[in-house]
């Protein structure tokens, strides 16, 4: 088959269960949205029955599959005064299928990769990414926090998914096989699929209205940079916690900690005052308003400039998780419409 030709098929729920079994048999682990207590988040599953695709979005993003909240980069145990350097065994990382991520989360992988492989390739991140297969599920519902279409994405967008499923109703999914990894994930499973016979996913997709003009955001941000009053006003109720950064599928800031002979990479957030505190005691961003500005600048100005990719995919998680109802969509609209 020509790689440019669209490979679209149908798969039923029972066949999907067999596909899950095949993946497990191949030694892959499957991460998918799973209900636990009162939250649905990515966790290991073995059958499609454990997967919960009911919520518009999971509470946390799937970025932990590539960038865990704590991970050992290498270790340096010492014995009798001698220090040994132990690299991570990258071959031991388990091949992983992330199932049920939304198109926005799939798009976020490019932003993460752009950061981790910016000036030099991050070996651990790249090894995890190479071992990762993404089986997205298109959105047939959205909520007031979603704004993927304002950023070039969409509820049925295929970017970043190796396979994209769309729930066609009646226990049937339309499966678009997007990449070579996607083809490999269904190798030998051809009988589980039926021909799609002209089925079209469009009518099944959520309608996410465009909320602002993205072209205006970057120049507006740059013009507003020194407008202290604007940023103070925008962020008055922000309390400076890291909830937004930690649920974000693209936020990639980290802290390095040495602990018992292990070097650890831990999530960090530019929203924390400590993030930029210098040893001298000087802090170039002493106020929350400056840190909130940094959050928007990094995602919508610095990343497009340096990495040619947006640092936001419009998933709306930060707005849903914010304890004080900071809503990034409202703030972007305010930026796009500001008259500096």
């Amino acid at each position, binding site marked *: 088959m020509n790689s440019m030709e669209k490979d679209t098929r149908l798969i039923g729920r029972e066949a999907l269960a067999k596909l899950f079994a095949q993946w497990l048999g191949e030694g892959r682990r499957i991460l998918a949205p799973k209900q636990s207590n009162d939250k649905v988040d990515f966790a290991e599953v073995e059958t499609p029955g454990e997967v919960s695709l009911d919520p518009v979005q999971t509470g946390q993003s799937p970025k932990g599959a590539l960038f865990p909240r704590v991970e050992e980069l290498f270790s340096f145990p010492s014995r009798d005064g001698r220090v040994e350097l132990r690299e991570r065994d990258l071959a031991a990382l388990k091949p992983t299928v992330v199932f049920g991520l939304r198109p926005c989360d799939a798009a976020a992988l490019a932003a993460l990769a752009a950061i981790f492989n910016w000036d030099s390739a991050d070996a651990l991140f790249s090894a995890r990414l190479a071992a990762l297969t993404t089986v997205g599920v298109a959105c047939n519902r959205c909520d*007031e926090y979603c704004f993927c279409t304002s950023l070039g994405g969409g509820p049925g967008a295929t970017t970043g998914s190796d396979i994209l499923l769309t729930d066609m109703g009646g226990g049937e999914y339309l499966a678009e096989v997007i990449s070579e990894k996607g083809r490999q994930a269904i190798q030998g499973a051809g009988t589980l699929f039926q021909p799609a016979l002209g089925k079209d996913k469009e009518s099944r997709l959520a309608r996410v209205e465009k909320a602002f003009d993205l072209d205006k955001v970057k120049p507006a941000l740059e013009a507003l940079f020194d407008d202290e009053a604007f940023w103070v006003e925008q962020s008055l109720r922000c*309390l400076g*916690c*890291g909830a937004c950064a930690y649920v974000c599928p693209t936020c990639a800031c980290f802290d390095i900690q040495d602990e018992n002979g292990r070097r650890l990479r831990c999530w960090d957030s530019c929203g*924390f005052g400590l993030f930029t505190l210098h040893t001298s005691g000087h802090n170039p961003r002493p106020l929350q308003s400056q840190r909130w500005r940094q959050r928007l600048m990094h995602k919508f100005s610095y990343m497009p400039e340096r990495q040619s990719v947006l640092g936001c995919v419009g998933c709306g998680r930060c707005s849903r998780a914010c*304890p*004080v*109802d900071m809503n990034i969509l*409202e703030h972007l609209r305010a930026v796009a419409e500001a008259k500096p």
Partner: protein
Amino acid sequence: MQALRSKARELLATKTVQVIIGYASGGGGRARAVFVREAAKADALVFDDSCQQNLAVYFSKPEVRKLGKAALVATPAALRAILQLAAENQIAEGELLALAVGGDDVVPLATFAAIEAHVAARDGDWSAAEKEELQKYEAMGLEERRRFWEEQFSRCLKCYACRAACPLCYCTRCTVECNQPQWIPVPAHDLGNLEWNVMRAMHLAGRCVDCGDCGRACPVNIPLHLLNRRLIREVFTVFGSRSGRSAKGDNALSTFKPNDPEDFIQ
């Protein structure tokens, strides 16, 4: 709501205060904090059951302090927070006007004595649902309780939303931010999460005003307020005191008295 709005308009028009820290309608049926500085914008203020955030938390935010003298739309928990902040020398008499809300009424409370009297007159026990929640938790055996918290803390992201949302967590530099020495492990692994969450709860023992904002703020829904409630009960049982009732209160766990009956401390 009308009483609140007209009071706000009056306070701003007469320049009694420069800002009203209150609630406005937010997204998804939630309320959010609003900082009203013009009488003409007082109609943004709302007060209903969705208004749960303890707005006293904003008193320690530099950008909010810069707005000038504030009137704070205060739930009972916010009034207790103001008294506790006063007891800890974080708010001086006359620095803040409390607008006590509840029902359709709004009661301006200008002095700590007035807030103390207002709180005392309406002080009650936990609701039946709150008691039941705590009883269910206390009924667990020691081992079961340990497993309960292990599971809860395993989800902790160390985003510190609990700290940020707490009006009594006003330290400009938290213990977790001190790294010479590093008292609390930074990574959000089991030990780091246990130490952080236990330290947070213990630092608030005898100081927590029981607003529940720590648990409400948590993006992974850890019922952090249960730890605080348990400690509130403990402190009350041992010391007979409840925080947030007096502007001059001693803090049970950070007050030294020369005539302390315990030998070990002398």
